[in-house]
């Protein structure tokens, strides 16, 4: 399924993130996730689930999409990856007709959230509240 609304999220064990501009942002400790590296993707960004969580339950936000193949499409993405070292080398792919894009594949717990929608979609019509999930921590 594809989501385009503000605050739509995916949670998974492995994901593919594609955007024209990916910038590492911070080293943070987020409740329910723990220590993780965050990234900000802008300009035509996408995130696809490649591997589902083992018990298929949302860990951070209740409404996040969990099945393999689920896709977020937006102008701005917030990505948090719970891994030992951050991804520094972003590969190049042929993404759209005109532009190449940066990409990276995660192999650890990944949370992606739409922080900015595609420009021509009115924000007021589609907005998705963030609801915190009941489970409290990830076993690691």
């Amino acid at each position: 399924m594809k989501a385009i609304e503000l605050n739509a999220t995916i949670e998974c064990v492995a994901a593919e993130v594609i955007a024209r501009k990916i910038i590492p942002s911070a080293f943070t400790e987020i409740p329910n996730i723990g220590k993780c590296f965050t990234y900000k993707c802008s300009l035509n960004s996408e995130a696809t689930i490649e591997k589902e969580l083992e018990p298929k339950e949302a860990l951070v936000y209740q409404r996040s999409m969990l099945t393999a193949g689920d896709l977020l499409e937006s102008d701005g993405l917030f990505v948090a990856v719970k891994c030992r070292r951050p991804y520094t080398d972003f590969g190049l792919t042929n993404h759209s007709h005109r532009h190449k894009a940066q990409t990276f594949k995660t192999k650890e717990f990944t949370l992606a959230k739409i922080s900015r929608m595609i420009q021509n979609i009115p924000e007021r019509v589609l907005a998705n509240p963030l609801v915190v999930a009941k489970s409290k921590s990830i076993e690691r």
Partner: protein
Amino acid sequence: MIKENIAIEKCTYYRAHNNYWQFLEASTMNSLLAESFRATHNLYTSFPQEWRSERFYYYNLLNSIPSYSYWTSEGSYRKNTEFVPVHHFEFNKRETLYITAIKNLIKQKEFLSLMYQVSSNQISDDEFNRELESNESKYLVHISDKADNFNFQALFDVVVNLGIELTLDEVSEMFGIDQSILEEHPLNPRPLLQIRSNESY
């Protein structure tokens, strides 16, 4: 500085031994208070200029006997129970907010500079990991999910007055507070007009 400390000690001494300022002679009391105020008000610079004027603080002093009142950036604050000099007073919420924001931005800057060093091969991956593990407090931004004792009005005021369009995650990383709390807060300047039902997922 020694002179100032002596003045403060004198005040606390009289306070402890006489219980009330009334037991002192008016002239000595006034001089003591003035002295201590002069000592403290040099250390506390966030007053507007007019509040620092002589007339204003003498007025304040005379009206605050036997209690001692002082001013914060959020208005007047009167404490009757004990004598606390201004510079010992805890920072108010607005200032702690600014301080956390600056700290988190500095942490972010430090982390990004480290990332730059790795990506440009100035340091190896192992060195990078070692640095992150050994000096964690220098780089790690804590994001809390507890909203008590947090001045949301000040936060949203700051965000609006910045005049830059910020996303939710940027604000949460800056002020160290969880995105869901910020989003559902009633003071959020961009409230959600329509909430989608659960069935759509």
